[in-house]
């Protein structure tokens, strides 16, 4: 045996028998000498005679399926196997050749297994022909075996293309030339790796690539010759094949494509191959893995119908009613499969039919999906690899440098094919979509990559029940499933019940997926999903139109006119206030009860009921005088914490509500709007004034932007940044609006960026030639977002939802832009500093009264 240190594992049987060539051959899954199976006298046998020709992946699995259905009561089973071994996993020959698996590990059914199950295994006996009239099997050992039912599972053999010198006169292969199909061939190759130095592998399909990789792993110099223009041409398209070639070559394997070998050189053993273009490749080991051909000679000799393989119907029956064919030797509806999954499906169906478990069972074809690792590269292939019809959708992501090539073919909203090379993380979802026709995401790219949110990497079905879905509220997948089981019939109900998705909101889509999965289709359509706020049954465009038409200027007026039965809804008030402010500007009629507490008192509520105070500090630029004043105020009001914020400002935390007006007055600075669903800050870098690298005056532009758009309310908060060069010190690439100076007076404007629970680089909206154009463009984008985004929808969701192209089209339309300019100007004009306003004169009685008044507690003696 070639494998060094190959220990004999008695449990699996290590019987040495005298092989055909006179060599000592170890029988894989063999039986210790002297043990024989007991045979019942044929004369006493009342069971039907079931004979299986072929002891490979299909034949042996079929026997297992029959036994599983209690078939040993009905049938006396005989299995013929060409190889002397028990049944082994042929798929695992590659790891055996690579030295990663021991051959004993790949045994599926040992000789003992057959004996224990009363199955007669005729291992090492080749069937020559079948007399279908007499219903007898003639084997090469001269025996004749009668049958009632015959199953052909003869599989395939390695195809050796016609080449001068590849065979000796007696028809056997020239020494040093090997197929890669059986354990014996694998053993011989393993043995040869010890003395050979250069190998040529013919065939750039799966087997060829695996052989090449394995041999290279044994230290051989390996060249791979493939007759087709790209590797794995049966499974991959040209582009993916090219990327695979790079990956294979990076392992140190030389690849020759689109060339045939015409001659094998060497008299006593192989010395090289000659290619059609005249090149000569020297080698002392030649592996032929140029495809397989179905083993049909027995069927042909027996007069059965054979085309590319043995023709069978939907019950795997040949034209003879008592002869069946399964696995790679069968041709069903014109298809011949070279994968194990269809063979196993054949085995199941035929076992159902023959045992009578389901006499009407039918096999209607397989949708083949495979996931494998070829030459160290992950590959998953299912269905078609390229579009076939005009209206097929075809999405390709190609990253040659990373060795990644992903593609999907979609027909009529169903996945009909996918190819994943180098990155198979999405295979679980795609396989489901392919097998079951599951609905596909509208954004097709999500089929292939997880956009920004890594949580979706695992399909929801595979997620463990205890995995946390909503990190804000600590809700697990199990909690969500429990809510569904407990009667919640819509995503909204589940979110209300569990509070999943009610924190930062970044998990909402995952929550939705899990609810849909848990409800398994039994889910009420949530009509409220399209409403702008839950209490008014209108989407934003219709709601906006109704507000304008009916001249509704306050939140209570909107409820009275548009809510069902005129009923107020607490959770709708904040969104309506925002929308009305946007629509009416200074003509909006404010109602404090329509505002969230933060907006009522112009500060951000903290966990202990105190507030944070953030004065405006445009562009993050301050002065010693301003800092001194902030310091004085902080001391005067005993501010528990002074903190520099991420938005380049100073936060005074832990302020009592009742102290807010006096503090604002002492600060004498405007509100920084660090609390609202509104324009927050514009971060800047030091730009061109001091920075050695600055390409534009980002500081001034940031201050100008903040001055113009200060306090403008939106569907959600809006954060901006301006940087003086692409080094991005103020993180403009991940802002709702980010501006980057790129020199020569030019500025790039990015939109839809995020660096919160979601991280997303903004999309480049446009490159413009002056700060004024930046300001105009920013105003138009912000207004378009304000008018069209859903309540609480950040730009990083909004921009991908409507599409960057749609945004660009709007901004290219002069008429629309004039409206946007007018809209944003109305809001700019309506700006007043809330601190200056309410500080002096409260908007409502008790606006700044404590909400948790002190209660006189009984005095406890201090120790």
């Amino acid at each position: 045996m070639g494998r060094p240190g190959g220990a004999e594992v008695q449990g699996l049987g290590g019987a040495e028998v005298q092989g055909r060539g006179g060599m000592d051959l170890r029988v894989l899954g063999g039986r210790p000498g002297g043990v024989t199976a007991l045979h019942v006298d044929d004369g006493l046998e009342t069971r039907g005679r079931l004979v299986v020709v072929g002891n490979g992946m299909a034949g042996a699995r079929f026997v297992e399926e029959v036994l599983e259905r209690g078939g040993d009561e009905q049938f006396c089973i005989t299995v013929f196997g060409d190889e002397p071994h028990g049944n082994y996993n042929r798929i695992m020959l590659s790891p055996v050749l690579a030295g990663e698996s021991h051959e004993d590990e790949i045994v599926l059914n040992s000789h003992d297994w057959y004996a224990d199950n009363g199955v007669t295994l005729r291992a090492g006996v080749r069937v020559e022909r079948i007399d279908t009239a007499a219903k007898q099997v003639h084997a090469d050992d001269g025996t004749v075996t009668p049958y009632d039912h015959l199953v052909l599972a003869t599989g395939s053999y390695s195809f050796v293309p016609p080449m001068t010198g590849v065979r000796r006169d007696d028809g056997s292969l020239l020494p040093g030339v090997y197929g890669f199909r059986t354990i014996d061939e694998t053993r011989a190759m393993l043995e040869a790796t010890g003395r050979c130095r250069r190998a040529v592998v013919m065939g750039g399909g799966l087997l060829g690539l695996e052989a090449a990789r394995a041999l290279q792993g044994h230290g051989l110099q390996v060249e791979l010759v493939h007759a087709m223009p790209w590797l794995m041409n049966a499974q991959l398209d040209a582009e993916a094949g090219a990327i695979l070639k790079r990956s294979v070559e990076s392992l140190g394997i030389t690849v020759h494509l689109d060339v045939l070998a015409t001659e094998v050189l060497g008299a006593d053993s192989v010395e090289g191959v000659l290619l059609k273009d005249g090149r000569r490749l020297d080698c002392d080991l030649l592996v032929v893995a140029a495809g397989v051909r179905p083993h049909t000679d027995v069927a042909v000799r027996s007069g059965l119908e054979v085309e590319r393989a043995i023709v069978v119907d939907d019950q795997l029956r040949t034209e003879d009613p008592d002869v069946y064919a399964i696995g790679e030797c069968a041709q069903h509806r014109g298809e011949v499969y070279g994968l194990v999954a269809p063979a196993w499906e054949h085995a199941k169906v035929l076992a159902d039919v023959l045992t009578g478990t389901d006499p009407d069972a039918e096999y209607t074809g397989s949708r083949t999906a495979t996931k494998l690792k070829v030459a160290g590269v992950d590959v998953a292939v299912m269905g078609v690899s390229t579009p076939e019809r005009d209206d097929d959708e075809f999405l390709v992501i190609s990253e040659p440098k990373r060795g990644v090539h992903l593609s999907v073919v979609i027909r009529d909203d169903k996945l009909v094919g996918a190819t994943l090379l180098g990155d198979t993380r999405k295979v679980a979802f795609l396989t489901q979509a392919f097998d079951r026709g599951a609905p596909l995401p509208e954004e097709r790219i999500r089929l292939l990559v997880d956009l920004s949110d890594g949580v979706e990497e695992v399909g929801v079905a595979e997620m463990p029940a205890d995995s946390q879905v909503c990190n804000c509220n600590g809700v697990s997948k199990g909690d969500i499933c429990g809510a569904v089981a407990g009667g919640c019939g819509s995503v909204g109900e589940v979110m209300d019940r569990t509070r999943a998705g009610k924190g930062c909101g970044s998990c909402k889509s995952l929550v939705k997926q899990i609810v849909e999965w848990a409800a398994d289709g039994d889910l009420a359509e949530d009509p409220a999903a399209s409403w702008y706020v839950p209490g008014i049954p209108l989407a934003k465009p219709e709601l906006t139109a109704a507000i304008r038409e009916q001249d509704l200027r306050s939140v209570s007026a909107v409820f009275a006119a548009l809510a069902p039965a005129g009923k107020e809804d607490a959770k709708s008030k904040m969104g309506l206030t925002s929308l009305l402010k946007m629509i009416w500007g200074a003509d909006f009629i404010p109602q404090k009860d329509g505002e969230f507490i933060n907006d009522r008192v112009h500060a951000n509520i903290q966990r202990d009921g105190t507030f944070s105070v953030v004065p405006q500090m445009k562009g993050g630029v301050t002065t010693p005088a301003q800092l001194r004043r902030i310091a004085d105020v902080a001391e005067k009001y005993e501010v528990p914490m002074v903190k520099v914020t991420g938005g380049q400002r100073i936060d005074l935390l832990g302020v009592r509500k009742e102290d807010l007006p006096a503090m604002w007055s002492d600060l004498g600075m405007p509100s920084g709007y660090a609390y609202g669903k509104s324009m927050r800050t514009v971060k800047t870098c030091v730009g061109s004034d001091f920075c050695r690298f600055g390409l534009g005056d980002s500081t001034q532009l940031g201050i100008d932007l903040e001055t113009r758009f200060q306090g403008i309310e939106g569907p959600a908060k809006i954060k901006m940044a301006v940087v003086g060069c692409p080094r991005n010190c103020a993180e403009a690439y991940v802002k709702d609006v980010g501006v980057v100076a790129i020199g020569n007076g030019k500025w790039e404007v990015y939109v839809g960026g995020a660096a919160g629970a979601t991280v997303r680089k903004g999309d480049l909206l446009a490159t413009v030639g002056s700060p004024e154009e930046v300001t105009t463009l920013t105003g138009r984008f912000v207004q378009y977002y304000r008018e069209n985004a859903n309540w609480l929808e950040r730009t990083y969701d909004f921009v991908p939802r409507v599409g960057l192209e749609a945004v660009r089209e709007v901004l290219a339309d002069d008429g629309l832009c004039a409206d946007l300019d007018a809209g944003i100007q109305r809001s700019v004009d309506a700006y007043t500093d809330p601190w200056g306003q309410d500080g002096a004169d409260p908007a409502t009685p008790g606006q700044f009264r404590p909400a948790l008044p002190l209660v006189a507690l009984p005095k406890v003696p201090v120790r």
Partner: protein
Amino acid sequence: MSAPHLEAARPTTSGTELGTPATDVPGGTVAAGPGVEHVVGRLDEIPMGEGRAYVAGGVQVAVFRLRDGSLHATQAACPHAGGPLADGQTDVDVLVCPLHLLAYRWSDGAATSGAAPIRLFPVREQDGDVVVTV
């Protein structure tokens, strides 16, 4: 390590630490009082649709005056994390706590999310005064 800048910390509500929820009054444990009526303030101190907090017989209460004219009273601190309920938003059905947006039904005090309920107190207006029974 001492933190001198934190020495001035004085929580809004006594008995709590800096940065912790404002009260340690957990849900459901608000003791049932003897049912005594307390005048806590004037009705016109409460803006329409809003809530204000009072102390009634040593108990913190939040009183809400809805736009339909109805009054509601509840414990002032949210049983979930001590949020100031008087700062919440409300409608005829529910009160929403400002800290984590848990909603409580006015009909029985139950949380729509299944969390611990709030305690409700009888409240009425008498000659412009707000009268809470604790």
